[in-house]
């Protein structure tokens, strides 16, 4: 058997497949930029704009034109935008007031601290839950009992435990994030195909090497799903926590605006929350894509 033909053909077909795909040699952050560029060339941005236009159009029509029941008392889009863009806002909060940015900054900083803590503690905790059956037997039932308790139910205890309101707010924000991250990480470890661990054993990997080269990267897709949920949940919890205590923050803005009957400001607070939350979530996704290029590329091949 000559052998050469089979090998050369194979080598050529591999190169061929790579050339056809176009992004075969794009790596790292360039891959993300490349995908962003592809996105901007596709019809998808327009669909997104149409989606927003429909939503805002419905808001405008239902409140200001049709004055539908239930919508009649709501702040209309024109009031909100006027207030938001006003240099001297009626209720004191707009794009031109320093206070607006201070509220955003305080909330972002609280979420950052809570999310960081939840990740630094939740990921290793979840990895051990998945890795050690014994550890799971001890800990998981307690974990599952605490997990369904809503954040608002924790408020009194948080205030008793932490005298400073700032640490109470961060604790409350942290809690749900921690549960989401830890649970997903554990599921990630449990989802790893036994063959990978066996293959690593065959190839001479020690227990700690299996942990580092198989368990951690194998759980990463689930970990990042967990982190996406975690960042979202931390914004929910933050607002709940800020309504209870604190002097700044978007949750505080919404709550005080309610008691002081400043309806447009409530909506400004809500929209700002949504936008900031979206950005943080996109950032987590970007980091995930960057760390899991194997997965990004597999999905890209599948046309997603």
């Amino acid at each position, binding site marked *: 058997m000559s052998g050469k033909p089979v090998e050369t053909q194979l080598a050529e077909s591999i190169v061929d497949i790579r050339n056809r795909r176009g992004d075969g040699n794009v790596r790292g952050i360039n891959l993300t930029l490349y995908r962003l560029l592809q996105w901007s060339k596709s019809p998808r941005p327009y669909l997104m704009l149409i989606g927003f236009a429909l939503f805002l159009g419905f808001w405008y029509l239902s409140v200001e034109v049709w004055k539908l029941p239930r919508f009649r008392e709501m702040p209309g889009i024109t009031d909100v935008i006027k207030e938001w863009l006003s240099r001297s806002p009626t209720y004191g909060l707009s794009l031109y007031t320093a206070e607006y940015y201070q509220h955003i900054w305080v909330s972002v900083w609280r979420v950052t601290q809570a999310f960081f803590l939840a990740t630094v503690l939740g990921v290793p905790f979840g990895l051990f839950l998945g890795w050690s059956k014994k550890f799971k037997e001890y800990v998981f039932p307690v974990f599952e009992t605490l997990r369904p308790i809503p954040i608002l139910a924790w408020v009194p205890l948080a205030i008793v435990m932490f005298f400073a309101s700032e640490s109470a707010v961060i604790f409350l924000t942290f809690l749900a994030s921690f549960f989401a991250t830890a649970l997903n990480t554990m599921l990630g470890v449990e989802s790893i195909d036994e063959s990978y661990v066996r293959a690593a054993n065959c190839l001479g990997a020690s227990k700690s090497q299996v942990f580092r080269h198989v368990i951690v990267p194998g759980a990463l897709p689930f970990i990042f799903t967990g982190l996406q949920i975690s960042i979202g949940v931390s914004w929910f919890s933050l607002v709940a926590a800020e309504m209870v205590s604190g002097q700044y923050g978007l949750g505080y803005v919404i709550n005080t605006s309610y008691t002081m009957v400043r309806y447009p400001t409530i909506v400004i607070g809500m929209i700002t929350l949504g936008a900031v939350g979206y950005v943080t979530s996109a950032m987590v996704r970007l980091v995930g894509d960057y760390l899991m290029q194997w997965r990004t*590329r597999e999905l890209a091949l599948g046309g997603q």
Partner: protein
Amino acid sequence: MSAMAAAAPPLTHSTRGAIVIDDVVKIYDPDGAAVMAVDHCSLEIEAGEICMIVGPSGCGKTTLLNAIAGFHAITSGRILLDGEVLCSTEKPKADPGSDRIVVFQNGALFPWKTNLDNVAFGPLMQGKLNKSHALEKARGMMADAGLAGAEHNFPGEVSSGVRRRVEIVRALMNDPKVLLLDEPYRALDSLTKSVMHEALLEIYYKNKVTIFFITHDLEEAIFLGHKVAIMTTRPCRPKKILEVDIPHPRNYSVLTSKRFRELMEETNVAVHEEALKAFAAGEKEG
């Protein structure tokens, strides 16, 4: 050993990788359901031989492979590799090691590592080579197998045929005594399969490693193997052992030869009988 190698027809000059399976029994859940997977199975595989294990799905062939690889314990008997006891009644579970490397049914290349990093994995983990040497050796071995173009791709980006070859190269990086293949080509279409068979033989002719190859495809078994062991359905034990006297090196023209068809006829009945039994047993269980 050398006398035997001289007597045996070509390609059995290797002196490492002789496996003796001696009266092995495996019972799952001995205190409960007590399912007998392997029943007093004995089989000898010579160093450097390709031994094909043929049997219906679920007959217990993989149990045997898992025992050799050290993934599962045996209940009694013993398995030797080059005269050394891997596992026995006293020490029922072998230690997994890089002298016996498994190529898995669904493939187990790490999808998060590039093909090159996958191939370099073994020597790096064992501390046998430093990073640059391991990568250099991996590049050389991939180039030899015609895989140079796939080095920097992730396994998910190449075809399943390429993945299988990369996985075999990853195993050979460790200079194993035995390759344990668990139906590696099961999911491939028959055209890709024929390419993979020739490619496997090419790799084998260069490396002369002992191959323990599980399949349920009789044609594949006779085409590749020096020896074909047809197993009974659960519990598993050799029903018929066929020495394939078609000389190596072989290529696909063998498939249409008279001798090949004779051997197929000779064994087809035995395989079909076991398949029927397995089918009937499956129906009862269901």
